């Protein structure tokens, strides 16, 4: 009966109670949403590369090399010469090696030169391989394979022409050597979805008539002539390496880091990711802190609502006291109401979160390349929800104790 009366009392103050519940729900949805984005981003980053033992590039920062080679974020400060690349490829520890050449773009998407081995060796999400949803991988020099997001965003289909721009934010285009879409990859949830992939030789081919970052005036070599040329690359941006034995990883890493011919850097992707989390950890903690403060604010709002209702509810409390309710029943009733509000707010917040995920998942994926999985609540999230309810009970103790003292003082004789 007490539970029913608590519900009844809440319903009698429906408008303010609904506002309070909504505030708690929004704060819970925000907190859990931040958690989802945080864990989703981590999982997405961690899933981006799998099965690669080392990433090699020009000497710079560990995180910088990881970001530009795998996530297409930022740029390389220098390249890795083709001679060094071949030298490393010949080392006995190396099982496979895939070159990556970055620098050009198409619309807002990065263009990456590589070898056909990339399609076999690049693994994501615990060892999944790339798959072609339409067409085939490059056969001709001017063939390109595009990621799923490139095809969706730009509406490309097999056979469509693509003109690559020189650099990342340049108005100069390699108009004389257009590419043809030969394949479209399945969606992976990785930066590959937003990449235009061409052959390593194609990167050389489109720069035949270029010198010092600009096209040589009046020079335009026909594509058929270019096809006959020796298009050996001068340098690559980075290389993904697989070793024959995991035991040799550190030995190979050390020898590359001490490479005498040029300053190189070899990184372990997992270790570099950990460094990245350490860097973003402060921002991550701040974000969690801010969203937790929003939850606390909503709970304090609930406390204020209960406080403001106390005076108008003195008659109600007096009736309870007259009927034999002890002051601690009054205290329990107010705490119970707060628990009900917090529980309803938490449940509604969870519902809002999932509604938001259903609506926002494809939008966030296309806008930021961040795939937020829609999965049942994790234990951590369940604990957060329980924490909100418990915190609601604790917060309500302040007005409940005041009501306790008021009911002791008023007894059953309140004249309002």
């Amino acid at each position, binding site marked *: *009966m007490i539970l029913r009366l608590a519900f009844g009392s809440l319903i009698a103050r429906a408008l303010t109670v609904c506002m309070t519940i909504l505030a708690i729900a929004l704060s819970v949805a925000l907190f859990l949403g931040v958690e989802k984005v945080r864990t989703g981003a981590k999982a997405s980053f961690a899933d981006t590369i799998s099965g690669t033992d080392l990433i090699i590039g020009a000497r710079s920062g560990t995180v910088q090399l990881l970001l530009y080679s795998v996530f297409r974020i930022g740029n390389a400060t220098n390249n890795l010469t083709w001679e060094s690349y071949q030298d490393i490829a010949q080392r006995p520890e190396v099982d496979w090696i895939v070159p990556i050449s970055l620098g050009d773009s198409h619309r807002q998407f990065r263009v990456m030169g590589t070898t056909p081995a990339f399609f076999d060796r690049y693994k994501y999400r615990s060892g999944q391989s790339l798959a072609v949803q339409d067409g085939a991988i490059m056969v001709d020099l001017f063939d390109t394979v595009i990621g799923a997001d490139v095809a969706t965003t730009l509406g490309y289909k097999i056979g469509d022409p693509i003109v690559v721009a020189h650099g990342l934010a340049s108005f100069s285009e390699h108009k004389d050597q257009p590419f043809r879409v030969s394949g479209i990859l399945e969606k992976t949830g990785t930066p590959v979805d937003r990449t235009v992939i061409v052959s390593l030789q194609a990167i050389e081919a489109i720069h035949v008539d270029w010198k010092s970052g600009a096209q040589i005036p009046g020079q335009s070599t026909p594509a058929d002539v270019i096809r006959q040329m020796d298009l050996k690359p001068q340098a690559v941006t980075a290389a993904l390496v697989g070793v024959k034995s995991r035991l040799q990883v550190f030995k190979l890493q050390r020898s590359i880091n001490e490479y005498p011919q040029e300053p190189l850097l070899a990184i372990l992707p997992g270790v570099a990711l950990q460094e990245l989390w350490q860097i973003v950890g402060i921002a991550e903690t701040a974000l969690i802190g801010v969203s937790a403060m929003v939850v606390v604010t909503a709970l304090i709002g609930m406390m204020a609502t209960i406080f403001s209702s106390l005076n108008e509810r003195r008659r109600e409390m007096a009736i*309870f006291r*007259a009927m034999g309710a002890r002051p601690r029943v009054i205290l329990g009733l107010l705490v119970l109401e707060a628990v009900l509000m917090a529980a309803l707010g938490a449940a509604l917040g969870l519902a809002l979160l999932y509604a938001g995920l259903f609506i926002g998942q494809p939008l966030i994926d296309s806008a930021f390349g961040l795939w937020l999985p829609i999965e049942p609540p994790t234990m951590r999230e369940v604990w957060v929800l329980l924490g909100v309810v418990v915190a609601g009970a604790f917060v309500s103790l302040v007005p409940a104790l005041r009501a306790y003292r008021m009911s002791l003082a008023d007894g059953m004789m309140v004249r309002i």
Partner: protein
Amino acid sequence: MADTALVLQLDDVRYRWPGRTSFGLNVPKLLLQRAETVLLLGESGSGKSTLLSLICGTIIAQSGRVAVAGEDLASLSPGMRDRFRAEQIGLIFQQFNLLPFASVMDNILLPLRFAPRRRNRVKDLKAEANRLCHDLGLPEEALTTRAGALSVGQQQRVAAARALIGTPPLIIADEPTSSLDAATQATFLELLFAQSRAHDTTLLMVSHDARLSPQFDRVIHMADIAQTERGIT
């Protein structure tokens, strides 16, 4: 040994509100017998509310003895006094008597929630609530109605049903008819008397209205049973 015919006994009771030197109440003697109907008349500020609080045990006299159904209230712990009140006393207030958001049924059964022995005296809670409503002239469908949706007269009948359920030995009514019109007032009192007589219940009703006197077994004036002390506030 306690006199079992006595439902209420006050002996040389003295009370002064804590922290207030302005008001004090002394009641040398007040006795109420079983099944007696008593009208307590008194002006505003004569100490009626303080007296009722003493009888209900929400405040305790600094000296003297307040006994309900033979039990000295001062000998009980605060928690036991609350339960004792629920077991022994049915209360009707002037107005705002009910929980407006709760159903009539929940309002009537509320005291039984805190009074297990009183509850055990009622075999079938719903049937008893229904019977009381019927006897007090409330329609059967009123039981599921929200109390706040009833008229003032109907609300007072529900309050009477709540006070009567489980047949407590003492019913205290604090100006229950003051917000009712004359016709409704008369009907309400008739129903209240009939129910209290049917269950041998003692009725102590507080009022300003001396015109009600002929309907009661006994009329007492606050001025006759109590001395109030007034100081400078």
